[in-house]
């Protein structure tokens, strides 16, 4: 809250009108996408239109709101989008940490009344909704093209924690478990619950109900998504998902290998919804990751977001 107030305090009136929007503006709150900003216009202001000090305050706000891992992931995905941009090619010129990363604040930061932070770019969407002591970090979109790359002598793999745990979960299945977890409804080339699927309607549950032996791995797969949030709030969410594991299903389609074409993995509980796909690339030779984490009862901090 304090960090958000600090960020807002750095803005002049013109910027503030654009960045600080009404909490009741649900349509804007739900405007995030992995399409270029030229295709889907974002709310708020692009980072390039902020001064260095304002940008630093915006990032400081995200740093406070997120865990160390969650904040590092923001920086890594920004790097990945910059890297992608440096490769050029179809449409890649629209991406990059300044060009298509936008920030917006909905409502007045308050300890009692709801407010929301919206921050994201091509392969990242952070929607953090605060209402008193309750926090929602969904919908959350993370992705990376390529899945791993080297920049400045460092290897960066922004979605590594999530992908490793997800693939480990499905690698652990026996043949018969794998057969019952296989989705029968068709094939997938991207997420079902990506941007704009914000009306709270989810696909009918399909797949294999989590067995006692898998609980640990399922929880381990959910954790990197939930743990992006600053600690105390994340622990509460994890406890909720853990208590629901008995009625949580896992499912897959196409393939289950980390490098395979169109591997599609899903965790589907009474509250938690995680989809992960190896989607096709156009600027890089291999598949790349798209993943969305939603909470069926708490996206945008509401059971009835639209």
């Amino acid at each position, binding site marked *: 809250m304090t960090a958000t107030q600090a960020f807002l305090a750095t803005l002049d009136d013109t910027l503030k009108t654009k960045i600080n929007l009404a909490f009741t503006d649900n*349509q804007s709150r*739900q*405007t995030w*996408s*992995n*399409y*270029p900003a030229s*295709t*889907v*216009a974002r709310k708020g202001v692009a980072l390039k239109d902020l001064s260095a000090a304002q940008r630093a305050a915006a990032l400081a706000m995200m740093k406070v709101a997120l865990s160390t891992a969650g904040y590092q992931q923001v920086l890594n995905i920004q790097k990945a989008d910059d890297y*992608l941009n440096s490769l050029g*090619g*179809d*449409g*890649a010129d629209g991406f990059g940490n300044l060009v298509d990363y936008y920030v917006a604040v909905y409502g007045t930061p308050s300890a009692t009344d709801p407010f929301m932070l919206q921050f994201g770019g*091509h392969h990242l969407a952070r929607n953090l909704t605060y209402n008193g002591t309750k926090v929602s970090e969904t919908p959350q979109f993370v992705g990376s*093209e390529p899945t791993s790359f080297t920049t400045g002598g460092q290897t960066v793999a922004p979605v590594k924690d999530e992908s490793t745990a997800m693939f480990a979960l499905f690698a652990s299945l026996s043949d018969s478990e794998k057969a019952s977890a296989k989705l029968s*409804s*068709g*094939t*997938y*080339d*991207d*997420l*079902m619950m*990506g*941007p*704009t*699927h914000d009306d709270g*309607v989810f*696909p009918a549950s399909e797949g294999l109900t989590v067995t006692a032996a898998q609980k640990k791995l399922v929880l381990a797969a959910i954790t990197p998504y939930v743990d992006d949030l600053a600690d105390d709030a994340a622990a509460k969410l994890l406890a909720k998902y853990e208590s629901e594991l008995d009625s949580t299903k896992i499912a897959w389609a196409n393939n289950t290998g980390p490098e395979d074409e169109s591997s599609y993995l899903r965790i589907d509980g009474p509250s938690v919804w995680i989809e992960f*796909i190896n*989607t*096709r*690339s*156009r*600027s*890089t030779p291999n598949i*790349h990751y*798209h993943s969305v984490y939603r909470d069926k009862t708490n996206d945008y901090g509401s059971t009835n977001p639209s």
Partner: protein
Amino acid sequence: MRIAVVIACVLLALFPGSPAAAHPMSTTAILLDTGPSRVTGLVELPIDRLEVALDEPLTATTVVQPAKLAELRRYVLAHTSAGTWAVDLTGGRVAKVDNVDHLVFDLTLTGNTQDLQLTYDGILHKIVSHQVFVAARPAGHGDYTTIGILDWRTHTVTVPTARPASTGSGFLAAVRLGVRHIGQGADHLLFLIMLLLPAPLLARRGRWVRGGDLRRQGLRVVHVVSAFAVGHSITLALAALGYLSVPTRPVEAAIALSVLVSAVHAVRPLVPGGETWIAAGFGLLHGFAFAALINDLGLTRGSLVTNLLGFNLGIELTQLIVVALVMPSLLVLSRTRAYPGIRLGLAGTGIMLAGAWFAERTTLIPANPLNGPADQLVEHPFVIAALLAGAAGALVAVPRLRTEPLPH
């Protein structure tokens, strides 16, 4: 764009007027030109997704082999329905959309009910995460508006077919449509005004000079307006009755060109007495554009002629109103020394607007920066007429600006 599918209704909410032609990669697009009893359009299917949905290798070359094309047409047809409306699918060609090969079919829906529900699940029935953008525009005019996105949740979209309720129906509706169309068609009006600019003048050795009495000037106005009316009536009738068919895009570009020609003619006479011929010749072109709109009225055989007459009458009435609003001021202004400047200024504006339209319609430029100002002009016709009249009154009131009477 490395992303696969995803996205959707934000487009609906944010870009009610965005051209859906630039639909995100690897999605299907259905682009519809709507009318009350007949809806035509395109179905654009990404070939790489078609491969996955049909589970067979397909390329831009193989999909258009006659036997394969017929099979694919049957496939798309089997996944398309529209209630009581008849569905017809023809053609089949490969086109690049966002640099990705798409198979494009021509879709025709015909029916008599107001209610058109289009149900479509091509590719969708197999690729759960696929998305189908459905966009429409009334009678082939203006930009497409996204009317729905079909995905795993919904395979049906309501297609607007009715005209706005205020229009009513029958002859009067046709008149109103005619009035509105030319009233909003900045290009048609500008063409006419450019031709009227030199009406008070005479062409002498490739230049415009003052000359002619009021009777003669009036006669030339009548000639220009009649020639334009005759020209566009001929093609409007022929095209609306189905004897002639011309693609919209080249016609729109040629209309921009016609404005350019008439504006240049207002600067320097291209042919002596040329405005009458320009009006008649290019009037033929404008008629095709009017005909594209007639479809909007929902014609049955019995009402076609009535509608055609009504529509044309609406166009002529509006033209006469424009002439009545503009011409007296021009005639007065032509009796001041300021007229050469005013004429050149207006003609220059016309050249700029026409050039921008031409560039836009031949897709030399993606967006026309002058559309805003042009629309403003068209939306405030009486303000412009009043300004012109005011200028005429003010200038003629200054004695030294008045021109000497011409020797007879």
